[in-house]
Structures are given as structure tokens and as C-alpha cells.
């Protein structure tokens, strides 16, 4: 399948995503410059982590207006898969592709540490290769990762089972201590209603090799490749 990794000014993790997909998974990956229009065929677009536009004003607020985002929004509207990691998640929220917003960590400090995540839903292209309740160990590293949405939005997220990942302790309990940033309901990752756009704060691309924090990040990417393989079979 074909992956596009979007490079904004201030993106930091684009190379990590690229290496993970190419080196660890043998995928076809292309960098896409934010000033260009989206052109060519892609199965999944990744908005990587980093500090687009320095995160000045608000995380993701300026990147959302980059020329390529028009194409990304259209692509998502047509059911294309879009994955936003950390700053990418923030951009997707600012762009309205995902509900809610990511605000300053409750502890006011940047937080970098491995965390435990519980897979809440598996009927999405991003988690289909995992099991409900399965624990993943991935690093978080952000200063504005506290997920906020108004009560009605939150209710909708629960009703539509759009909450895909929650921060939990080593035993799988979503406790306050296990929540690194004060996110409502320990939310670490959500998808949109049509389940083709996924944003998460933790970094799967930094947990893709036995020498690193873990290899659990590969489960997210391999879910996506598996999902695409299925849809291709359908079309074939």
C-alpha cells in the first residue's frame, strides 16, 4: 500500500514514521511537503508529531491552513485513512476532522515517558489487528496532550465507540495516576464517526523495534496495512 507522510515546518517525527514504515514494515512511503497540493494516490496519510509552526499561538492552529490540508480534508471526506500522531492529532482537531481539542497538560510540564494504553475498540482500520482490552506500551512526549471536549461531544464519542485508546496502569485500570496529562476520561486516542480518521497522543513510530521502548507501535501500523489489504481484495 502507499503511505504519505506530511511534512509541516516544525515537524519532528516525520523521519521516524518514514523509517518505521520503510525499514521495519517494507512499505512504500513518500514525504509530502505542506506547501504542495495533495497529488497522487495514497492509501493512508500520516500527520506526524513535532511542533508545526513552533506550536506558537495554539498547537496545530497554523498548520491547519497549510495548502496541503485542503487535499487532506477532501481525502478524509472520501473515506481515505488519516492518522494523526501527537502534533498531527492536534492539527486534525484544529482542522475539525476530529472533535474536541488538546490543551495544556494538567501538570503544566512537558511529559516524556512510556505509558500503558488499553485498546478500547477493534472495529477500526487502526486497531483491527489488536484485541479489545489489549495493553500497548508506547511513549508519550508532549506539553499539550490533555484531551478536552464538551460533555455532549464526550457523550457522542462514547456512544459511537470513537474512543480507541485510554491511558491505563500496568494492570489495565484507567486510574488518575496512569493519566499523564489530565485528559478527560483518560482518552489517549479517538477516531471520527466514520472511523477513517484516527488521532492519538502516544508515538507508535518510536516503539517499533526490540531495542526501543517496545514493539507495540507496529500493531497500529500493521492494523492499517491489514485493513487496506482487505479493502483491496473487496475491490479486486
Amino acid at each position: 500500500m502507499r503511505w504519505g507522510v506530511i511534512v509541516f515546518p516544525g515537524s519532528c517525527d516525520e523521519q521516524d514514521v518514514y523509517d518505521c514504515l520503510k525499514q521495519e514494515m517494507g512499505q512504500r512511503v513518500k514525504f509530502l511537503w505542506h506547501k504542495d497540493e495533495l497529488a497522487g494516490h495514497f492509501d493512508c496519510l500520516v500527520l506526524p508529531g513535532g511542533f508545526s509552526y513552533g506550536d506558537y499561538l495554539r498547537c496545530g492552529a497554523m498548520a491547519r491552513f497549510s495548502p496541503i490540508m485542503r487535499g487532506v480534508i477532501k481525502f478524509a471526506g472520501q473515506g481515505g485513512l488519516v492518522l494523526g500522531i501527537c502534533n498531527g492529532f492536534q492539527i486534525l482537531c484544529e482542522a475539525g476532522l476530529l472533535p474536541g481539542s488538546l490543551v495544556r497538560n494538567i501538570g503544566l510540564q512537558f511529559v516524556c515517558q512510556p505509558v500503558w494504553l488499553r485498546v478500547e475498540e477493534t472495529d477500526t482500520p487502526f486497531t483491527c489487528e489488536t484485541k479489545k482490552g489489549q495493553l500497548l506500551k508506547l511513549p508519550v512526549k508532549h506539553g499539550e496532550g490533555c484531551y478536552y471536549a464538551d460533555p455532549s461531544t464526550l457523550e457522542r464519542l462514547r456512544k459511537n465507540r470513537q474512543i480507541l485508546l485510554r491511558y491505563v496502569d500496568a494492570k489495565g485500570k484507567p486510574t488518575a495516576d496512569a493519566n499523564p496529562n489530565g485528559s478527560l476520561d483518560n482518552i489517549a486516542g479517538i477516531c471520527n464517526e466514520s472511523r477513517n480518521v484516527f488521532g492519538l497522543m502516544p508515538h507508535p513510530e518510536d516503539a517499533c523495534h526490540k531495542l526501543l521502548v517496545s514493539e507495540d507501535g507496529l500493531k497500529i501500523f500493521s492494523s492499517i496495512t491489514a485493513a487496506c489489504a482487505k479493502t483491496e481484495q473487496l475491490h479486486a
Partner: protein
Amino acid sequence: MRDQKPTGYSEPPVTPARVASHGITPEEYQKIIEILGREPNYTELGVFSVMWSEHCSYKSSRPYLKLLPTEGPHVLQGPGENAGVVDIGEGLAVVFKMESHNHPSFIEPYQGAATGVGGILRDIFTMGARPVASLNSLRFGSIDHPRTRYLVAGVVAGIGGYGNCVGVPTVGGEVYFDECYNSNILVNAFTLGITKKKRIFTGTAKGVDNPVIYVGSKTGRDGIHGATMASESFSEEKEQRRPTVQVGDPFTEKLLMEACLELMEHDYLVGIQDMGAAGLTSSSTEMAERGGAGIELDLSQVPLREEGMTPYEILLSESQERMLLVARKGTEDDVKRIFDKWDLDAVVIGRVTDDRQFRALFHGTEVARIPVSALTQEAPVYQRPASPPANLDEWQRLDVSTVAEPKDLGAALKRLIGSPNVASKQWIYRQYDQYVRSSTVIASGSDAAVIRVKGTEKGLALTVDGNSRYCFLDPYVGGVLAVAEAARNLACVGARPVGLTDCLNFGSPENPEVMWQFAQVIHGMRDACVALQVPVVSGNVSFYNETDGVPIYPTPTVAMVGLLSKVERVVTPWFKSAGDLVVLLGRTREEIGGSEYLKVIHGMVKGTPPWIDLKLERAVQNCCLEAIEKGILRSAHDISDGGLAVALAECCVSGPDNPLGVRIDSHEMIRGDALLFSESQARILVSLEDEKLPELREIASEYHVPMEVIGRVSEGRFVVEPLLELPVEELRSIWASGLSDRLK
């Protein structure tokens, strides 16, 4: 030429008072007049003052720095360039350096530390290397000092705020708290980059008429005279008339880094250098010096952020995120196109000449003309008087028999591992992105950090160390131990040293006692570098770290880089499973002089630091390295601050999973507190499975390393027969919260 003034601005006359306020002595002023054959104008005075400042000219330290060994089979670039370069094989090279940003960080901790990181990053990518890992070495006043919490919070947030934003992981460092830093903290920032051996760039200006190109942020009135500030001591009233602090812009730095690295993929460049201390002045003159050329700048072309800036201000501004390039004539537009893509200014502001002159024009008028060599090689060099501190004997005198052994050694251990210098530093490194670049194999929390070199089987290990209390009590030994501990930290993860960089933080060189300490530390470092065969490839000197005449402890910080030929063989310091044997490589002696134990438990800074036999140190390290390379060890941890007991406790509690216990039964016949807390050097604590013991014995005897099986990893309890027994969970929580609780 001094009567012809460009329209629109006028310079103040050069008076003896102004000469003095620029930190130029009457003798130095005479020398300037001889060189120019006339009096300098105000702009030229400013140029001399920064280029002849201690910070830029190293006038007090140069004679001593010559003593350090800088050569080695793999050294591609030693001191003298923006950073050192070492060959790591497979066509790759590592580029690294450490820089101090002490005074700015005390005035404005967040911005001071942030811009310190920005500066060292530019030193690395200016050489053509992509920065891949950073360290930081910090010194703060007593944790109880009213200002300390504010300074720690600001400095750490600043380092993270900048480093995280540019996408370079901060993978390690060190931090110490001591009264001697109460009003002069230290912030030393280290960065390492990786590049192709064949693609190394230098700060050189050559080729007559090649364009000089300014790239990056616009120039404002930031930090004018930062270089001279770094060359003066603090005093309360100086803190009042604060200099304009520089504000860092990590976003622009990130763009600048990407643009420069992209530019370096083409062959448009002749030379490139960042504008650090003394900004445009030092970058342009140093480039001309290296290229044996002259340089002509048209200051009216420099992109400005503020109205009405004078040539003096433009030349001396220390605005951040700026670089100076010399490109091949005719490639100007290609260069511009690349910086355009990244939304950055790139402006031709001058040309290379062959007259060996530094010339600055402003709206068509020459405002400065100085021989390049006058600002570089011919800068003054001083053989400053040096003499041992009057009270040295007093400081070193310690009669151990007068040191009462605590009745409750368990309580002593608890106090020690909860003390700020020993407790977990997680509160700090949690604020740093340690994982970006997906290469971090061992992040902060181990003896040394380890990153993988993508596309190879290799790994790089990084550590920074320096115990200033040792240096205060015996600067020679302190210098030796700083290098020895750094190398030992590398050995513990399985890496062989390839080179080191250092920051030498001292008081005023005009104080003979400080100068003596400086000389002693250098001699100590030299001897250790020779014995352990580690070349010094770059470094930095920071003098005038004192307040109202009281110098800080002599504080050399040594950052060492090591290579693992097979990174998957890496070993971590914490115990792995109950039942494993615990073995001590090296021997424990009754050495509590200058120890953390003596300071924390007995409130004394006295005695002489531990004795060191460099042959044994080397043997212990090689023994550990071979054992790791043969895959015998499950853990290895260096024994430093707090001695054996603290090292054991760290092995039990510092791992990612639940803490393990240990049961120790040593036969060393010395008093209990010495056995537990003495900081004897050349010791490494390892754990392994029983069946591996014979192999380890073999290696140890081959290197003539004394080793003792001192106990076993267990569960639940921390036991040292017959001295103490504690629940390990209690130790863990004290260690984990010792620092964070004090910083809340």
C-alpha cells in the same frame, strides 16, 4: 578615516572611560593603537573588546589548553573548529561539543538555557552533521536556597522547550546542588551529530569575491556585549543593569537547521559558521582567519529587526538563529532558493577579499578596518600568576577517627538516597523528549545514554560527569576523576570511548588561586586522557563564575562519547532477576574524604578525594567491557556518589519494573560507614547468572582485576550483613521522590 562619518548616525568619541567600560586594559589599548597605527573609532573599539574578551580569545586559558591530548587514530577534527569530529567507521563520523551558558541562565533561566541549547545545536549542524542527541550538565545552589526552585524550573523548561521543539532528543545529563552555586549557576549543553565522513563543513572564508551570505533571523539589539558579560564576574549591581537578554526562537532554528542541511547536499558552500558570541564580528573574522583571507561586510545590507541600529550594534548583536555562509560565486540564487523554501532570509552582505583585513561599510562609508589577525592570533595571551589556595591544607585535613559512625546505618542510607544529588532525576528528564528520532536505546536513568546508529549495527553511548567537590579539595585528582568516571560510565553500558568534550567552569582567572586550580585540573584531565587513551576533540572555558569575589568550586564537566560495535549487546545498570550473583569489580577502601556521605550525613566538605590508580581503572573498565561483549553480564553499574550502598540501591530500584531486593555479605575489613559509602574509584557493580561466574573470573584475572562475589539479587528486602536491612519498596519511594518533593 575617523572624521568621515556616514550620514544618519554619529559615534561617541573613544574616551579612557569608554575603553575601560569595554573591559580593555590600558596596555591592551596601547597594543590596539600599535596594530592600527592610530586610535580606534567607537565601532572598532567594540569589535576589539569582544574579540579580545576572555570568552572569544581564551587569553588566560590558551597556554594550558595546549596540554590536553587532542590526537587519536580516529580524530578527524580536533579543537579549533565549531566542533570536534571523530570517525566511527562505515563512512560515518560523529560531531560533538559542549558549551556553557551560565550567566544568561542566571539572569533569565528559561531563555538563557534555551538559547544555550540553540547555540550548541548550530555548532553541530554548521559542520554538516544532523544533531541526533543532547546532554546537559547543570549546577544549582543549595536546594533550600530561595531562588533555586525558580532557577531549576526555568532552566529545565528552557532546555526542554528548545530541544524538544527542534526535534533533538535530550538523552542524559547530570545535576548537582551545592551552596557554592547559590548565585552563579552552571548550564552546560552538549550536542552530538552524525554525518558522512566525506561531508564535513568548516567555518572558512576563501576565494576572492565569493559572496558572504547572511541567513536566518533578523538582527536586533539582543545581548550586545554578551561576550564581555561572560568575561566579567557578577555583582549585585550588575544584575540590576541587566543586559538585554536574548530570546530563543526554536521554530526558526529548526527551519534554519533543515535549510542548512539541505543546502549541504549541494556543493554551493565554501564555508559556514553560526553567529554565536560576538555575533557577526566573530563569525566573519574567524572565517577569514581560517581561510587566510580578508572579509568585507556591508552592514546596510544586514536584515534588521529594530529601527536605527548603528554599525556598532549590528556588529556586536548576539541575536539568535543566524548563520554566516561563504558560497561559491554564482550560486547565490541557488542558495536563496533553498532558504526561500524554508521561509528564511538569505542576503548577500559582503564578499571575501585577499587583503587580510576585516572591513565594515555602512551606507558606503567604511566604519571599521582592522587586520583579521589582530582580532584572532594576535589577541593577547596571559600567563596569569597561579598559587595554591591559602586554606588548601586546612580543607584537606580530615581525621577519620573523629567522624562518628552513625548508629543507624539504614537511616543514613535513606537520607543519602533521598538527598537531591543522589535521588532520581526523573523530575528533570521527564520534561525532555528522549525518544524523537526513534534511536534511543537507553534514555536518561542509566550510567550512560545509548542511541542506535540507524543503518548499522553500531550504537553510541554518551555521558557527562564532573564532581566539583573533588576538584575543590584536590583539583588535580578532581580532573583525573572527572575523565575516569565518564569513561567508567561508558564501560558500564559496553561502549569504548572515542573522544570527549568539556566545559571548564571556574572563577576569575585574575585570582591566582583560581588559576592554580585551573592548571591543576587540566594536568589531571591530561593524565587521565593519556592513560585511558581518550582524545579531547572540543571544549569550552567559562571563567568569572563567582559572585562578589567568591568563586564557585572548580567545575570541569566532561562529556564523553563511546562506541558499541554491536548495540544489541548493550547492558543496563539495574538488576534483572532474583537469584543472580552480585559481583564487585575493584576494591573498596576506607575513603570518605570529599564524599557525598561526609557532606550529607556529617555536613563536612573535607579531606582528600579518593585515590586513583589509572592502570587499575583502565583494567576494571576493560574487564567490564570484555564481559559485556562476551554476553556474560546481566547488569553493570558504576559506583560513584554515595558509594557501594547507593549503587546497590540504584541497581534494585532504578529499573522500569518492580524493584528487586539484594542480600550482601562482604568480607572487606573496614568500618561499616566506609564499606557502605566510601567513594573508592575503579569499581563496577555487576550481576550475572551462576554459570557465567567462571568466565568472569577468567577475564578478571587476565586483566589483574580484583573481584569479589558479594551477594545475590533477591526480592523484597535490601540487606547488607551485618550492617543494615530495609524494605526495598521504602528505598524506592524515598529515591523516587527525593528530588521532586523538594522542587514542588
